[in-house]
């Protein structure tokens, strides 16, 4: 690899990891080290005081639990709803497929503030404010178009000949679907599920509209930020980042650049 390329990559890595490092660093730094005119980049002192205060106050674990449950359910529901749709989409004539995908894209374009307002009004009536159910229902609206899009790309990439071969070997339609098609679709399903999870995990706007008391993790982090406490904010934000890194790390081997590119849509 030529020198300019690798230095470019190093720069990019720094750009990507830098803020995460600062977040972690602030969360374990003595206040005097950060609240100065010239904060240092490298840590000097080390303290777990902020983490102790964060966890002992007991305000952060309920939001963490609520967000974990919501994101898990959103990912599962997104796959259940989007996979059959994507399977059909991939088998439709391309004119139909692109028409429907364009429709999904148009739905994704709609501003969340316009969706959140009436949904909040209705959920208030239905008693769904502060509930995980309400939040999952709301998050799905924004996740489904993307999940369907990713999964359509996935199913399109599975050659029909494979399914035909399975059928010729005596597999029933369900067996073919379960043992062949879905197995082959695992990378795409992983990406779609992960994206749905990530989206729900960090979603802020809908959660704000649909929350009266029981906060989600992003709202809790925002609460610390609003209080002006940098250290609790940094610690809570680190706590919120950890599951993301863990999950992406665990699913790493299923992720491929190509399927992620479809995901980016």
């Amino acid at each position, binding site marked *: 690899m030529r020198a300019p390329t690798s230095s470019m990559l190093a720069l990019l890595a720094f750009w990507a990891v830098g803020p995460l490092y600062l977040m972690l660093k602030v969360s374990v730094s003595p206040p005097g080290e950060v609240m100065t005119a010239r904060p240092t980049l490298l840590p000097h002192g080390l303290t777990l005081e902020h983490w102790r205060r964060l966890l002992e106050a007991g305000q952060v674990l309920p939001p963490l639990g609520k967000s974990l449950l919501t994101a898990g359910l959103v990912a599962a529901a997104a796959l259940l709803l989007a996979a059959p749709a994507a399977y059909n989409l991939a*088998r439709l004539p391309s004119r139909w497929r692109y028409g429907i995908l364009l429709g999904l894209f148009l739905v994704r374009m709609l*501003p969340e*503030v316009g969706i959140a307002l009436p949904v909040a009004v209705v959920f208030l009536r239905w008693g769904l404010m502060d509930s995980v159910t309400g939040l999952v229902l709301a998050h799905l609206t924004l996740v489904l178009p993307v999940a369907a899009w990713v999964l359509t790309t996935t199913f399109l990439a599975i050659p029909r000949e494979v399914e035909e071969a399975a059928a010729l070997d005596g597999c029933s339609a369900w067996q073919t679907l379960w043992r062949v098609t879905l197995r082959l679709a695992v990378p795409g399903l992983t990406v779609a599920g992960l994206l749905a999870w990530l989206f729900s995990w960090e979603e802020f706007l809908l959660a704000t509209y649909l929350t009266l008391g029981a906060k989600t993790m*992003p709202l809790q982090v925002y609460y610390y930020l609003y209080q002006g406490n940098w250290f609790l904010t940094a610690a809570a934000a680190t706590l919120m980042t950890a599951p993301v890194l863990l999950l992406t790390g665990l699913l790493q081997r299923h992720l491929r650049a190509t399927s992620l590119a479809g995901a980016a849509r």
Partner: protein
Amino acid sequence: MAAPARGGRAGGHAARRLPGERSLLGGVRADRIRGRGADPLAERGGRRGPPALGGAAGRAPERPPVRPRDLVGLLPLALYLAGFTVVPVASTLALSVSAPGGGITLDHFRRIAGHYQFGEAVVNTVAVAGIGLALELLLGLAAALALIGRPAGRKSLGAIRTPVDWVGTRGLALFTVAVADAWKVTPLVMLILLAGLQAIPGELYEAARTDGASRWRQFAAITLPLLKPALTMALIVRGVDAFRIFALPLALTGRGLPVLSTYAYVEYLEYGNPHTSAASSAILLIMILLAVGTYLKLAGPEEVLR
């Protein structure tokens, strides 16, 4: 070779028309395979009936009409999105023009138009989207090129270093929010562009090198034009998101930098006025539609969904 292929296709069509055929797969293919044995036409072509050939015929341009059962899997998704997305947005639009006592009015729009924070929100939304998109595309392209090791003009990278010479807190806040947004989504842009770059055949670069084209020339004459679909994709997807930016301005500046989303949020949740909130949501929707529509018109719609 042409005749048997046609025969195979005809057999496929006949098989598909057999009554009582059911496929849980919802696809045409399973029908055809199981129908083959029962169909005389397919029988005749049976000895050269490897699945691969059937597959080739299935990709032929002439396709059977789409039947309702091919769309069954789409139904839950469509109903869900209609109920939880299209209906709410429609009711927001209705809310934005409905008078409290009944009837239609444009008062809410007049009211927000007279609100200085609203004008600021419109300008901020466009500015943050513009700066953010420029940064994301430049950085995303640089990253994708670095990863794939393709020639890039150094000039394009130099643009990143161009200092933004705005002064004043608002300019600084705009820039901060845009940079934060770029930090968050540049990897996504990079992935879209990387997929686009991987689709460019390497032979083109070899040929260009043989002809003595400079690296910058290769970039301008091969990479950029062939990357246009991916760039269009990235621009539209990210552009729509950038207009809807919400959490970053709120978290980084509090009320310091109103954008349309946060304006709508404050109007509803803090001033308790759903009508003005809906009106600013409607303006945001119109801005998004205008931006996407203009870009599609310029870029050509066929570029978008490839």
